[in-house]
C-alpha cells in the first residue's frame, strides 16, 4: 500500500481502484471523489480539492508517516468514468470513509459519507475526521507564508511611502480635495447599491454556463445574483450617472457650445439618447431578474 503512495494523497486510477477499494484492507481509507476538470464545471470540487490535499499533508506530517489512515483521491476523467458508473455516482464531490475490512466489499457499500454542509468545508472535514478517528491528529493547515511576496509587498510599500513623503504637500492637497472624496463616495455607493455586499456575504458564483457552454450572466429571482451581475449593473448605473452629471454640469458650461447652438443641440440630444438606451438596457436586464415586470423601453435584452 505505502509503495503506491506518491505524496500524501493516493491517486486512484482505473488500474489500481479494485485492489484499493474492494478490500480487504488493514488500513482506514478516506476517499475524496471529485471532478476538478473545468469542463465538468464543479465549483465546489475545485474549491475543496486543495483543502483536502492540505489536510492529508498535515495529517502525514503530524503522524510522521506512521498513520494507518490513508487519503485517496478519485478524479473524474475519461479513463475513470467506468469507476463512477460502477459506484453509481450522480454528483460530486463526495468524501467517503472506508473502514478496515477483512473481506472484500462491493464498490457501492461499506462506507460512510461526510455531508457537505454550510460553513468552512476544511473545518467540517477536520471535525468529521476527528469524530471517526478520535485518536488521530487532524488539523486545518495554515496557508504557507510566502516570503517573496511579503518582501515584495514591504519593499513596494516602503517605496510608495517614500514617494508620498517626498510629495507630501501635493498629496495632502489632492487627498483633501473635494473631487477625490466625491469620487470615492460615489463609487462606494455605486458598489453597495449594485449588490456587492450580497456577493461577499453569500460567496456567489461569478458566472455560470449552460449545457451548451454558453455563458449565463443573469439568473432570475430577486434574491439570486451572480458576481458578474454586480459588475454589469454598477457599470450601467455609473454610465447613467456620468451622462446625467454631464447634462447638468458640463454641457451648459461649455463656452464652445454656448456660441454654437446647433452643436449644443446635437450634444444634448446625443446625451439624452445615450441615457435612454442605457436605461433601456437596465430595464432589459431587470426583465431577466423579474420575469413578470410589465414595462420596458427599447428592448435590448438580446445582448445577454
Amino acid at each position, binding site marked *: 500500500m505505502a509503495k503506491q503512495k506518491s505524496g500524501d494523497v493516493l491517486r486512484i486510477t482505473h488500474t489500481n481502484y479494485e485492489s484499493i477499494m474492494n478490500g480487504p484492507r488493514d488500513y482506514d481509507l478516506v476517499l475524496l471523489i471529485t471532478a476538478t476538470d473545468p469542463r465538468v464545471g464543479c465549483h465546489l470540487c475545485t474549491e475543496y480539492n486543495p483543502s483536502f490535499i492540505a489536510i492529508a499533508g498535515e495529517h502525514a506530517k503530524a503522524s510522521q508517516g506512521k498513520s494507518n489512515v490513508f487519503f485517496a483521491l478519485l478524479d473524474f476523467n475519461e479513463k475513470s468514468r467506468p469507476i463512477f458508473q460502477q459506484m453509481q455516482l450522480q*454528483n460530486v464531490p463526495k468524501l467517503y470513509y472506508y473502514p478496515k475490512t477483512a473481506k472484500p466489499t462491493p464498490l457501492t457499500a461499506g462506507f460512510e*459519507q461526510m*455531508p*457537505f*454542509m*454550510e460553513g468552512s468545508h476544511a473545518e467540517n472535514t477536520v471535525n468529521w475526521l476527528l469524530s471517526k478517528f478520535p485518536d488521530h491528529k487532524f488539523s486545518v493547515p495554515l496557508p504557507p507564508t510566502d516570503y517573496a511576496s511579503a518582501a515584495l509587498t514591504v519593499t513596494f510599500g516602503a517605496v510608495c511611502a517614500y514617494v508620498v513623503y517626498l510629495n507630501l504637500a501635493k498629496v495632502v492637497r489632492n487627498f483633501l480635495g*473635494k*473631487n477625490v*472624496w*466625491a469620487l470615492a*463616495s*460615489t463609487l*462606494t*455607493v*455605486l458598489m*453597495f*447599491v*449594485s*449588490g*456587492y*455586499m*450580497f456577493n*461577499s*456575504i*453569500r460567496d456567489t458564483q461569478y458566472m455560470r454556463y449552460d449545457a451548451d457552454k454558453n455563458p449565463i450572466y443573469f439568473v432570475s*429571482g*430577486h*434574491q*439570486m*445574483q451572480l458576481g458578474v*451581475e*454586480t459588475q454589469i*449593473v454598477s457599470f450601467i*448605473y*455609473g454610465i*447613467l*450617472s*456620468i451622462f*446625467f*452629471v454631464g*447634462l*447638468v*454640469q458640463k454641457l*451648459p458650461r461649455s463656452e464652445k457650445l454656448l456660441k454654437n*447652438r*446647433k452643436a*449644443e*443641440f446635437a450634444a*444634448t*440630444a446625443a446625451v*439624452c439618447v445615450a441615457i*435612454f438606451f442605457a*436605461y433601456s438596457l*437596465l430595464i432589459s436586464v*431587470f426583465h431577466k*431578474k*423579474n420575469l*413578470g415586470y*410589465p*414595462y420596458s423601453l427599447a428592448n435590448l435584452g438580446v445582448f445577454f
Partner: protein
Amino acid sequence: MKPLTSVLQTTAFALKVVIILSIAGAAISSRLFSVIRFESIIHEFDPWFNYRATKYLVENNFNDFLNWFDDRTWYPLGRVTGGTLYPGLMVTSGAIWHVLRKLSMPIDIRNICVLLAPAFSALTAYATYLFTSELKDSGAGLLAAALIAIAPGYISRSVAGSYDNEAIAITLLMTTFYLWIKACKLGSIFWSALSALCYFYMVAAWGGYVFITNLIPLHIFVLILMGRYSAKLYVAYTTWYALGTLASMQIPFVGFLPIRSNDHMAALGVFGLIQLVAFGNYVKSSTSSKQFKTFLTVSLVLIIALGVSGLFALTAAGLIAPWTGRFYSLWDTGYAKLHIPIIASVSEHQPTAWPAFFFDTQFLIWLFPAGIYLLFQDLANEHVFVIIYSVLCSYFAGVMIRLMLVLTPVICVCGAIAISKLFDVYLNLRELAATSEETRKDRIFQLLSRMIVIMSFGFYLCFFVYHCTWVSSTAYSSPSVVLASRNPDGSQAIIDDYREAYYWLRMNSPEDAKIMAWWDYGYQIGGMADRTTLVDNNTWNNTHIATVGKAMSSPEDKAYEILVNHDVDYVLVIFGGLLGYSGDDINKFLWMVRISEGIWPEDISERSFFTARGEYKVDDQASQTMQNSLMYKLSYYRYHEVFGMQAATDRVRNQVIPKKDIELDSLEEVFTSENWIVRVYQVKKGDNAGRNLQEAGSFERKAKGGRNRSAKKPEVGLREL
C-alpha cells in the same frame, strides 16, 4: 411693482399648499390597495402583536400598559411586555383614538391601526419636503416629497394594515433630521431641543433609532475633521446629545443602554471630543501658536491612550454591554450566520441583491450617485450630512434587506436634488428670453435642446409613477394573512385558511388552552385566536424556541413528553403541500432543527434529517428521522386520502408522499382548514386505563384489525381538488 410680487408670492404659497396636499393624497391612496381588495385588516405577523398591545392600551390606562405582564405568551414564562416593547406606536394610535373620541368621532381602534401607516406617510412626505428645502430650495423639496410619497421602498413597510413600528419611524427619522439640520444651520438651542424631542419619540417608536444615534455624531465628527468646527455646532450637538440621551433613557426598554451599550458609545465619544475641541479653540485663541502645538500633541496622545484603555477596561469589567447581536451582524456578516441561527433564519436579515434596489427605487437608483456627486459641488454642512447618510446607509441596506426602508428617503432626496438641478438649468426661461441678439435659428435649437431634456426626464418621472403603482399593487399590498390566487377561469379566489383556523380555535378551544406552533405564528394566534402561545415573534428566549423546535423534530413519544411538560393542549402546523404554498412549516423545518441542535446537539442532529445523498426530501427516500419527526407526521397525516388512488404529491416540493398510513397515538386531528394550510391537533390526555398512549394506540389498532379509525373524520371527498 410691490403688489405684483406679493400676489406672486401668495400664488406660489397657495400652489405649494395645493401640491403638498395632493402629494399627501397620493401617498395615502397608493397605500390602500389591500384595504380595497381585501378589507381593513391587520397584516403579517408583528402588526398583530402591536394591534393586541394597542387594544390593551386603550382598554386599560397608560400605567397599566407600561407595567403589563403578559401571561398569555411564552407559556409558562410569560413576558414583561410593557418593559420590552417600544411603546411609541401604540401610544400614538391610542392618543389618536382618544382625541377622536373627544371630538365625538368614535372610531374602531382597528381602523386607526390599519390606517396609521398611510396617514404617517403623508407626514413623511411633508417632513421630506422641509428637509430637502433646507438642502436646496422648495422646488427640490416638493419633488422629493412627491418621490418619497410613492417610492416602493417606503410603501413596502407602510401600506394600510402594516401596523408596525417602521410605519411611524420613518416620519420621525426625517423630522429629526430636518430639525437637526436646522439646528446646525442656526446654532439654536430651540431647534436642537426640538430635534432631541423628536429623537425621543423615535427612540420610543423603533429600535432603528441607533442609526440616528450614530449618524448625528458622525456628522459632527466629520465636520470637525474638515475643520468646520463652530460654536453653532457646539450648541446644536451638546443640546441634542444631553437632552436626547436623557429623554431616551426614560423608555423602559432602553433604560441605561445609552450609557452602557457600545452602540451608543460613538455619541458619547463625540460629545467628549467636541468639549475638547471647544476647549482647544479657546486655548488657541489665547496662546501663541508654538505653545499651542505642544499642548495639542501632548493632549491628543493622552486623550487617545486614556480613551482606548478606558473603553477596554470598562468592557472587560462588564460595565459596558458588548455589541448587541443584531447590530453585530451588520458589521461582521459572518458572525450571525455562525452563532445566531435565529437571526440568520429571519428573512429580514438577509443581504440585498441588486434587483431589490431597482425594484424599490427604479430610476432614482441611478440618479442617486449623480445626486451625491452634485451635493459635493455645494458642500455646506447639511450636504455633508446627506452624503454621510447615503454612504453609511447604502452599506447597511446592502447587508440587511430590511434597511432598504431607511435608505429610500435619502435616495429620494438625492434624486430630487439631481432632477431639480437639471430643471434649474433646462427650464430657465429667463435666460431663454434674455438672449435677444441671437438669430432666430439659434433660438430654435436652444429651445429644442431644452425640450428634449425636459421631455425625456418628464417621461422618466411618469414612468416612475407607473412603476411605483405596479410594484405597490402587486408586491407590497398582500396582507399575507389572507392570500389571493386565481381560479382556473381567471376569477379571484381568496384563501382565508389562517383566519378560518384561528377563528375555529377561538370558538372551540377552552379559553386557557395553550397552543404550540412555530414562533412565526405566535403573534397571530395571540391576536386572532386569543389563546396562549409558547413562543412568538418576539424571539427573546432562544432556549424556549429551541424547545418547540425540539418537540417538532423529535419522534412522537419524545415530543409528547415535551408537550405534556409544557401543558400544551393544541399543536398547530402550517402545511402548504396541497396548495403549493411555499412558506410552510416543512420548508422552515430545518431552522427548527438547527435552532434546537444549537441547544441539544446530543439529541438533534441536522444531518440525520437529510437523505444519504445529503438531500432534503419528504418522499419515500426521506430519512427515518425525518419521517418519524412530529412535524412530518402532523403535516402529512392522512394526506394521501385526499388523492384517493392517485399518488399523493406535495405541490411545494414536487415529491410523492409515501402511501403508508401515518399513525398518531398521542395527538388527534381536530381541525384542518379548507386548503389544508392550517392543521390543528389536540394533545390527548393520559389513557383511561393508565397505559401509555403508544401502547393504547397499538392495542387499539390490533383490536380493530388494521386501519379503521373513529367515525368522526370529515368527508375528504369534498375536498378533493
